[in-house]
């Protein structure tokens, strides 16, 4: 493989997958197989979360478009769509933060019960990964605006894969956290 950075990122994603599998197992375990109360589950708004999910998916799409622009050496398009991805990512994070605030106002917290613990841990770690991804994209954007164009493009492969990964993980999290209680 030519792109060392992308290879490294792929391996790291493989590793992170196991991390999230462990967290999801924890979540499913407490959700399904203990007598944990469902207070948090009852307060989750799947529709709202679904809308924010669309933002995150869209950000993956815009990132792909910006990659295509990069391959055609259309730097303007590249920058615009990169910026768009970042904005969409930030929208998603904003959604998550406001959701947390809403839940905390309803006294649903990390320490309320075991379901709260696993819910906030799982979504929190995902949110943390999204923030890291946004930072990486920002760095790419800033570098591509400046003189370091060549370097930023070299790092693009890795960051792109990472961003898609964060996106896919969210789909699983969304399914297990928001959809399964409805089934």
């Amino acid at each position, binding site marked *: 493989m030519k792109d060392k950075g992308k290879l490294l990122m792929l391996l790291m994603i493989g590793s992170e997958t196991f991390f999230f*599998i462990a967290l999801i*197992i924890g979540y*499913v*375990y407490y959700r*399904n*197989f203990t*007598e944990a109360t469902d207070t948090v589950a009852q307060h989750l708004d799947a529709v709202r979360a679904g809308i924010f999910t669309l933002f995150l998916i869209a950000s993956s799409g815009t990132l792909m478009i910006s990659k295509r622009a990069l391959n055609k050496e259309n730097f303007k398009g590249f920058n615009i769509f990169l910026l768009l991805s970042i904005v969409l990512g930030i929208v998603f994070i904003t959604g998550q933060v406001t959701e947390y605030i809403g839940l905390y106002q309803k006294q649903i917290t990390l320490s309320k019960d075991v379901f709260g613990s696993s819910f906030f841990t799982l979504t929190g770690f995902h949110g943390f990964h999204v923030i890291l991804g946004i930072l990486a994209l920002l760095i790419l954007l800033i570098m591509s605006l400046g003189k370091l164009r060549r370097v930023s493009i070299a790092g693009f492969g890795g960051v792109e894969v990472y961003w898609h990964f964060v996106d896919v993980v969210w789909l699983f999290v969304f399914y297990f956290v928001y959809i399964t209680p409805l089934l």
Partner: protein
Amino acid sequence: MINTDFFITPDNWSFAGIILSVLVIAAYLLFLKTKTSQKAYFIVTVILLYVSFGSPIALLRDYGLHSLTMLQHIVLLMIAPILFLKSIPSNTILFSEKFKLNILQQPKNYYLMFWWLSAVMMWGGHFLSAGILSAETGTSICGITATKDSWITAIPESLILSLLFIAGILFALPVFNPVKSKRLAPLKSVIYLFTACVSCSLLGLYVAFSASTDTLNSSLTAFTTLRSPVPLTLRADQELAGMLMWVPGCILYVLASVSILLSWYEENPVEKSETAIHTAK
């Protein structure tokens, strides 16, 4: 009572199935020129298919034996497809160079797609089976609940089993394609199989460890009437199912990986290219 009677009652053995199997085997032996080992693989495949679809074992499912369903699924999803692909000669039209379905020409074009497709079919198939069982018994199976006697019971079980077999073939194709040049590189096949193992393990884990007393108690009444003759407790049955999915399934892929690697260590591109030059002349 499940005893030898159950197995020797001719009614429980599908006669049409036997005829069909014999015909298929005969056709294979007559029309295809293959190695002896391939013939053996094919015969075993047909026997496995027959046992899964037409033998009393298929009927035992009706006792709500979760572990047996899982065994059936493993055979159809993992064992039979590999044997089947191994038994197909490389000049079969579907796989040969002449067959110009572009996507099948290079494994890198389709392996990801097939992985996902078969993973979805595997999980979907299992959940559908659980759903049917749930609808038949009116209880929840591994957290899956269907309304009693809902439309879902109309789906014939054999359809799901056939789908699983097809999913198995699709899944095994990138690694066990009869044409060697269309296979994934050895190390990539190992990773491909390993990722499948992870997926498989998760299902096994889920099934095995969801067998807590609490979840089972709710379904106890329905099952005791259904399967009073079976000498397995409900919990043991479900754990057995999960563990079967997990341990033998994974060991099968580990063995496949190791056998792929063993031939890869010996691989000698020099010899290969020399013979290639030889044939070119």
